[in-house]
Each structure stands twice: as C-alpha cells, then as structure tokens.
C-alpha cells in the first residue's frame, strides 16, 4: 500500500536522523554541550511529564495560545467581512492596516508587558496582533473572490444581506479561513512563547528561557519538541474540523487522505 510505504519512509528518515545525532554526540563528533543528544532529550521530556512539572507551563501556554487564536480569528474574520463588503471603509482604512501589519510584532512584546503586566494578558495581546492579520487578509480575500455570477444569482433569487452572508460569503470564504486557521495556530503559539520568553513566570517559553539561562541545551531542545508536538496536534484537530465543514469541494489532486 502506498500510504504505508510513505509512512515507513517518513519514520525511517526520522529514526536515521536521530540515530546519527545520538552517535555523533556520543563519539564526540558534535559537542553534546551545544547539541545535547536525543536520549537525554527523551529522558528529560519523560521526567517532565512523569513528575508533572511541565503541566502548569503547558496549561499557561495553551491558555494564552487558545485565547489569542480565538479572539484574533474572531476579530480578523469580522473585520475582513466588514471591509470586504464595505469598499469605501476599506479604502479609508487600507493604509492603516498595511502600516500596522508592517510592525515587527516582537518589538511590541515589551510594550504589552508594560501595559498588561507579566501575566497571561500580555501574551494573548501579542498573539492577537499576529493571528488577527492572517484571519483578516484571508477572509477579505475569500469574500472578494466570490464568483459574481453566483452572487447575482443569489440576489435575484431573493437573498437579503443576511442570507448572502450565511449562504454565499461565509461558505465561499470558509476554505480561505480554514487554511488561515492552520497558519494562525502557529502564530498564536509564536505569540505566546515569544511573550513568555521575553518576560514571564510560567509557560513553555519561560521553561526554554530558563534552560537557556543555565546553558542547559537538553532543556531547550526538550521544550522545542514539546512545543512542536503540541502544534502538530492542534493542526490535526483543525484539519479534522475543516474536512467536516468544507466537504463540498472537489478533492485536490493527489491529496493524502
């Protein structure tokens, strides 16, 4: 079966890489101080979860990330819909949106810490500034690309504004919004972790920053792995929801089930 072969190759590649890393680190070809080694990292992750010391951090990061994701997306979709349907407002706001989007978000982190403190709120704010624009631009684009004929047809068939929103604009933008959700999750995590990294008392970013502070590369890598798995799980969840909601589309060529 093709799917199985593919999986075997993928897993094989990973194992090969890990084996090489372990070997190179043990035989001194790369310095374990700077690169650690997979067995240590695995052990560290195991210890974190078995003693439960990682859970409070995981909880904080998850909370920040979910809040940023939720509010960033809601704001982005709402504003995207509004501006796509009100061209004159869009024309007025266009330079402001471009300017705001041009700010490198990382420089906002200290300001948000100043405004909102060291807690969850400043990280959520940072995440929102990242997530918002992704959702906004995708929704805007999705609504703008609605086929004019489909739109005219719906209007002639008697659709009011509310009907158009529900039965035409939102479904048409849905595939754009969903593809943006998967990017947004990544951004929400970035917002949370970078915020924690730059100043906080809890979270995976804090954990990584602490490990880094004492030159504990194993801790840094272990934090990265936990984050990675965390994002992959969320991404898969969104993929599931997407498949349920956007099932009207023809299946993309060569897509993997």
């Amino acid at each position, binding site marked *: 079966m093709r799917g199985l072969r593919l999986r075997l190759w993928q897993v094989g590649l990973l194992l090969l890489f890990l084996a090489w890393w372990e070997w190179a680190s043990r035989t001194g070809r790369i310095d374990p101080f700077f690169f650690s080694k997979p067995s240590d990292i695995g052990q560290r992750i195991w210890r974190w979860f078995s003693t439960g010391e990682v859970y409070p951090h995981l909880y904080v990061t998850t909370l920040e990330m979910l809040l940023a994701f939720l509010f960033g997306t809601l704001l982005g979709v709402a504003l995207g819909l509004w501006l796509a349907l009100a061209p004159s407002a869009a024309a007025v706001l266009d330079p402001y949106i471009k300017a705001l989007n041009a700010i490198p978000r990382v420089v906002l982190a200290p300001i948000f810490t100043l405004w909102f403190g060291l807690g969850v709120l400043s990280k959520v704010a940072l995440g929102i500034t990242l997530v918002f624009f992704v959702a906004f631009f995708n929704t805007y684009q999705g609504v703008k690309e609605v086929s004019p004929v489909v739109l005219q047809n719906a209007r*002639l068939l*008697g659709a009011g504004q509310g009907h158009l929103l529900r039965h035409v604009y939102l479904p048409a933008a849905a595939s754009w919004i969903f593809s943006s959700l998967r990017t947004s999750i990544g951004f929400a995590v970035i917002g949370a972790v970078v915020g924690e990294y730059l100043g906080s008392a809890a979270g995976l970013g804090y954990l990584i920053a602490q490990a880094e502070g004492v030159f504990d590369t194993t801790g840094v890598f272990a934090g990265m792995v936990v984050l990675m798995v965390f994002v992959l799980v969320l991404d898969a969840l969104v993929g599931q929801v997407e498949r349920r909601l956007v099932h009207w589309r023809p299946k993309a060529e060569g897509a993997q089930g």
Partner: protein
Amino acid sequence: MSFLEFRQVSVAFGPYVAVEGVSLRLAPGEFVSLVGPTGCGKSTLLNVAAGLLAPSHGEVLLEGKPLRGLNPAAGYLFQQDAILPWKTALDNVALPLVFRGTPWREARERARSWLEKVGLGRFPHHYPHQLSGGMRKRVGLAQVLIANPRLLLMDEPFSALDVQTRQLMENELLRLWQEDRKTVLFVTHDLEEAIALSDRVVVMSAGPRSRVIGEFPIPLPRPRDVAEIRLTPEFLRLHREIWELLRGEVMRAHAGA
C-alpha cells in the same frame, strides 16, 4: 400594455458599445427568442432585463414602470454556472424558498419534486462538482422555476445537453410554460430551437453596436412537440426565411473576429 419593454436601450462597456438603440416589447405570456451571432450582446440584454446592468441610454419598463435595481419579477437562468458550489442539488433548489421564509424542511420537500421534474430525482445529495455540466444547468433551471417568477430570462439553457435530453427538456419547458404562461425571453444560438419554442424570434446584428434587425412571428400551432414540429413545411419555410437574415450576420461576426 407590454409586460416588459426595452426602450432605445444602449449598453457600453467603456468605449465599446455592445448594443445600441434596442427596442423590444414582450406581451404578457409571450415566448420570445433572441438569436444572433456570438458576442452580439444577447447576454448583455438579459442582464439589463434582470436589472443587473443599467443601460447607458434608454430604459427598461416592467409593466409600464421604469425598472430600478433588480427586476423583482424575473427569474434568470445564467449562461454560466450560477448555482452555489457548496450546496447540494436539493439545497440549491430549496434555497429560493428559504430566502422567502419557508422552513428548510418544507422547502426541501418541494425542491425534491422540482428536481424530479428536471430529471435529477436520483441526485439530490450531489454537490455541483459531482454533476455534469448539463445536470448543473438543470439544477439551475429547477432553482429558477421553484420561485415561480412571472418573467423568465434564459441564456442558452440547453446548449450543454445532448440532443435527446435537450428535446426532452424543451418539451418539458413548453409544457410548464403552457400551464401558467410566464413571459419568456430566451437566448439561443440554435435557430431551430428558437423557432420550435417561440411565439416570436428576434434577430440581432453582429456587434459592436448591435441592434434588432428582424422580428419574425412564429404562427405554428400549439401545443407543439419540438421534434415533430421541425419536420413541418411551415417550420422549414420560417427557418429558411430567418436563416437568410441571420447567416449574413454570423458571417460578419466571424469576419470581424
């Protein structure tokens, strides 16, 4: 009084004048076909009649009153696909009723019988991308007819169908029309189809600045069978007479292209 009247209608797209000075009257319950070479502005005139496109000069009257905005009496079967790609065939047909406030359950109930009338009773849960071009056209037809418009605008509705299905649909259309005598403005490339269906055939000149260059009443008896009527001497005489005029225009359009 005529039901629909074009009064000296001109439409320009920028510097390109597509149609110029078109005057045309449709009596209540009349079936009028519009024929002309490709690109002469037939779809443009239907868009004007539907109220989707404002003429650059002249006006359209609906029951003697100038048309402003969308034509409330019109059902429009577009030349392109206009059904909603994210709704099943059944939901597409039910939608116009839902727009008018009918609950989904009842709307679907009635949509089902319309799907059967257009020969798609077996495909209620197919999405448009799972249907053939001809089937999508028929979904569109059911969608337009379920709302029971008094004016029916049809833009080459049967051109994607094979000859047998096409004659079936033409007869079905005539039967439905015979029931409640909607006013119909029917656009087609196919002169035989125009004669077989219509009370009157209107010929347009090749664009640009396309005009009406001939109107031919079709005094063939009703009810008609589109396959049989093609064999009558009267039909052949009309066909020859109209083709005489149309051929010159088709050649001109071809040479101009």
